[in-house]
């Protein structure tokens, strides 16, 4: 068995990782802004830069998952009937397909989460 399981073919973790990355990014962005503003720092810019850096890291991680889903799992964005076959390879391609869709969804969600910090200059 090779670790981490996320890049081990056949693991369902590849499907779970994009939402986990979004949740972690959401929590961290919220936490950074809340703590920064609670300490009376009126100007949001330093916190916004931290959230922007975090966003880029989250998007890179989601991109990495998307690459694994495409290359290792041969996942496609479009639906193909063959991925529903009762075969090991089809099951992996199904996981790749679902993981890719979740990557797209969670990349958008991460950008939406970060958007307010890029628009507002003040707490």
């Amino acid at each position: 068995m090779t670790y981490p399981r996320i890049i081990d073919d056949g693991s369902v973790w590849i499907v779970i990782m994009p939402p986990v990355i979004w949740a972690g990014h959401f929590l961290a962005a919220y936490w950074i802004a809340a703590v920064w503003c609670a300490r009376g720092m009126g100007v949001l810019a330093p916190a916004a830069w931290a959230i922007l850096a975090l966003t880029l890291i989250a998007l890179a991680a989601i991109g990495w998952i998307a690459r694994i889903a495409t290359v290792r799992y041969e996942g496609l964005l479009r639906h193909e009937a063959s991925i529903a076959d009762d075969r090991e390879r089809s099951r992996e391609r199904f996981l790749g397909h679902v993981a890719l869709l979740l990557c797209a969804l969670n990349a958008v969600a991460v950008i939406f989460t970060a958007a307010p910090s890029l628009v507002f200059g003040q707490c």
Partner: protein
Amino acid sequence: MRSPGTRTWCGPRLLRLAPLPVLCGCEGRHSWLAGAGAEARAIESLFWPFLIGSAIVWTAVMAFAVFAYRSAASDKGERVGRAVILWGGAVVPTIVVAMLLLTGLLTLRALSARSPALTVQVDGEQWWWRVAYRVPGQAEVVTANEIRLPRGETAELLLTSDDVIHSLWAPALGGKMDMVPGRTNRLTLTPLTIGSWGGLCAEYCGAAHAQMRFEVVVTEPEAFRDWLADEAMPAAPEALSEGGGLDAFLDAGCGACHTIRGTEADGPVGPDLTHVGGRGRIGAGLVPLTAANLSRWISHTDDVKPGVRMPAYPDLAPEALDRLVAFLMALK
């Protein structure tokens, strides 16, 4: 005389009345469509495009649903259907939601970017509003349940609460903002239309939540500054010297909770009454300020406002009550 045939019109006529409970909120002093403030107008300018856009999207989705339901299955239809789902169900909604988010955020930024000419501290209490004006070089002005603002000038409202969460909302002037214990939230209002606009608590805060109202009185800037200067003065001397009213006030123990500047009454619990006679309403916006209403308020407080924290004084002698009411009405 009504013939049996005309009865058939009653149904449609009644149906036409059906939206009235909703539509009656579309105008008047509590309506956010009244456009009495710059902030309310900014929110309204978001509302109509959003409403029209939503109606178009809803109609298109319903039309697609009917079309899909009536279409026969085919390979070509399957491919087209998947393309519609991809573009209509994922790509276009993502773009639309992103645009809505950006528009909303930019509007919010524009609303909070106005630099205020005036700062007003508003403290939410169960179930009334303590309002304080702090103008540099002038004595602090404390009043209650009435927020006076000058037309055309941006006022910054610093919102706090001492007990539970309240929410200040004057719909005709702008959006609402929560008042959270331990925090100071900031709301800016730029009134554009002179008048008396209704306000209310928009966060359930206990028994008399629905009776926690206030007035926003918008006047010309000169009239506002005259009012502020008058409010900064202690109680009117003619009221204090009038027919034993102050004695009745102090004897009844009112001074333990209420302040009248210029007298020994300095209670911090209830509303400051230094210029109570100049306010339009009593009981946190509940009833107009008249001698009869004030008399009933003092003697049967809980009847006027169930749940109110102020105790009623039903046993006050009629002469003492009359003197007290005349005294309070004279505190202009």
